[in-house]
């Protein structure tokens, strides 16, 4: 006789859904300053615990404490704050522009500004990022012109990508920013290849791979870790865990592994988790991993624990899949407010200066927007030529494309 209980199918569920009470009791938050800082030469097996913790520098009072306090000057921190504020203002204006019909699509960074802004400062000028769609801080913190970003978003006559790409899929080799695909995870393994090439050529440049929590489930993520591990590629493998992949909570991609950082351990890749809403901690951990890569010590995996406070894109409404006020309950707070609080506590900033800076940034962004809109928006004004459809498919126009171009008469 069969006495076995029938099998049960398991589908993980988030702690709460719309109408429920936000619940982050499952997110263990260590005290700021409480996590050790090993030397970069450390053996991966000696720091396995760092894949399950969260490195934090800023405490509740805004003080920077512990072994991970980075060597950033107050001026550099003010610059970092400005980058994040610029990104947030830029987002607000472009989100509105999309609602006004000036472009088809937009993706905000709200709540995640520290990750890309701080990482860019830690990286060298000639290194290469392989970003996803939510790392525009890599451009803003590297002085990429706001007007060019907007022209790309508007697909207008000055769009550097000639109207071929969805909004926010920027590309700038000069700024160490690889062309964004829009297909998920593909760039993660390409970054490893770029880093392998740098090592093959005995160069000193390193690569940075970027991926979200959801797309770590793609097989390209696994491939990237295998190649990075096998060839000890000089690459920093960044996983931005913002808790949500569109409407899917991070547990669906994470499965039974405790954290995304822990994915690195099976590959012998040192893996660290960091408070992604803490500009100082993010910078410090990025710097540690970048130094490792630069010293030929191989790849490092970093999981940035953060929260996507806004929608995934202009095409979804988060209140349909998570509690409406969940973002306010996120235990790691807001990256802009936290850095501002730190600078004020350190005597380097004030509410007054903050307000004044906000106004300055808004004026700068609006001026850039006016300039960009003079070159056209998606549905009005100057637009890329239909001829641009056929250019750059190949280095040289082949006969069949020449015939097709003739058919539309351009």
């Amino acid at each position, binding site marked *: 006789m069969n006495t076995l209980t029938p099998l049960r199918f398991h589908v993980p569920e988030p702690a709460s859904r719309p109408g429920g009470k936000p619940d982050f009791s499952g997110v263990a938050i260590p005290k700021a300053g409480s996590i050790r800082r090993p030397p970069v030469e450390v053996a991966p097996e000696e720091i396995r615990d760092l894949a399950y913790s969260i490195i934090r520098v800023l405490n509740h009072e805004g003080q920077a404490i512990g072994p991970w306090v980075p060597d950033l000057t107050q001026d550099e921190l003010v610059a970092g704050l400005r980058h994040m504020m610029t990104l947030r203002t830029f987002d607000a204006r472009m989100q509105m522009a999309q609602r006004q019909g000036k472009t088809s699509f937009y993706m905000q960074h709200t709540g995640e500004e520290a990750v890309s802004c701080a990482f860019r400062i830690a990286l060298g000028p000639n290194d290469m990022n392989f970003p996803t769609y939510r790392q525009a801080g890599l451009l803003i913190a590297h002085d990429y012109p706001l007007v060019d970003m907007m022209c790309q978003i508007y697909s207008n006559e000055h769009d550097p990508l000639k109207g071929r790409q969805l909004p926010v899929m920027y*590309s700038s080799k000069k700024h160490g920013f690889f062309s964004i695909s829009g297909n998920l995870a593909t760039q993660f*393994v*390409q970054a490893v290849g770029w880093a392998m090439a740098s090592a093959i050529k005995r160069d000193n440049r390193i690569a940075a791979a970027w991926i979200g929590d959801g797309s770590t489930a793609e097989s390209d993520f696994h491939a990237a870790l295998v190649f990075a591990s096998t060839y000890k590629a000089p690459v920093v493998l960044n996983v931005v865990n913002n808790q949500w992949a569109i409407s899917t909570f991070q547990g669906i991609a994470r499965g039974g592994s405790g954290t995304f950082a822990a994915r690195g351990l099976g590959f012998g890749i040192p893996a660290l988790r960091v408070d992604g809403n803490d500009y100082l901690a993010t910078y410090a951990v990025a710097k540690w991993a970048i130094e490792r890569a630069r010293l030929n010590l191989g790849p490092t995996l970093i999981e940035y624990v953060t929260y996507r406070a806004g929608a995934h894109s202009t095409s979804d409404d988060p209140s349909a899949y998570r509690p409406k006020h969940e973002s306010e309950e996120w235990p790691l707070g807001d990256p802009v407010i936290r850095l501002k609080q730190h600078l004020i506590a350190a005597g380097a900033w004030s509410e007054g200066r903050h307000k004044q800076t906000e106004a300055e940034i808004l004026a700068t962004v609006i001026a850039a927007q006016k300039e960009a809109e003079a070159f056209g928006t998606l549905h009005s004004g100057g637009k890329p030529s239909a001829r641009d459809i056929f250019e750059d498919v190949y280095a040289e126009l082949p006969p069949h494309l020449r015939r097709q171009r003739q058919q539309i008469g351009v």
Partner: protein
Amino acid sequence: MPRMTMIEAIRSALDVSMLRDDNVVVYGEDVGFFGGVFRCTQGLQQKYGVSRCFDAPISESGIVGTAIGMAAYGLRPCVEIQFADYMYPAYDQIVSEAARLRYRSSGDFTCPLVIRMPTGGGIFGGQTHSQSPEALFTHVAGLKTVVPSNPYDAKGLLIAAIEDPDPVIFLEPKRLYNGPFDGHHDRPVTAWSKHELSEVPEGHYTTPLGKAVTRRQGEAVTILAYGTMVHVALAAVEETGVDAEVIDLRTLIPLDLETIAASVARTGRCIVLHEATLTSGFGAELAALVQEHCFYHLEAPVMRVTGWDTPYPHAQEWDYFPGPARLGQALRDLVEVR
């Protein structure tokens, strides 16, 4: 001039390219120390070191994905997928990434990458070692697709592919590696050494991409073929006595439409021949182009002789393979159309 098999010619192309350009790197499964399961990379690791020729994990998406990153860096990777049948895990990287990188970045990033893969059947490889997936590449904007039919072209085309600024899919008909094969599986195997196109210069030369070549001149019908099927076509022509013109396409994209159209305009009849499955195969594209460009010269419908629309079977290989008997019948049928 030395005589080479197709394997030796491919190896020579890689050797010449690696010697001329430090940026050429070669890797893939079993490619390094062992020199590849078909031995195309034999000796390259010993000659150029492990950083220029090395073994890769069994991960086709990883092989192509890393190669795209290397190409974006400025290298010229030439990677091997062990069998074309294994390329599907890499298809996203090929289609969404390699093929579009120049376009989507407006030339800011480019992808000078060659992906070599053995293609086609005739070796009792069953459904996972016999496929001819060329149409899956010719359908993708931004890729070039090359299929050589002999050692001389294989070397010249591969060097041209490595020097090309865009991604090239280089399909190597595995049944041709060691000798010309005309589809007569029951006859003794012939060696390349007796074939005139096994005379291969040792040094550097290129065979331009996008240029077909006429292997046999004829007046009655034009046969469009590539890879192994070029040899099948020549055999069928000889056996039937039909005065057919045989065009070896060599490159599918970009396609040498000029050579094709000029020939069909003269013969008025056309057979498209390939080993891949019929429906939506590259032959469909060829038939459509011939119809568009030669309609008023055609005296009969364009015919297709291809593999069946089934997976590639194992034991029934020779019932599947479009050999000289099947082509011969089609030739006789076609010339009878009045």
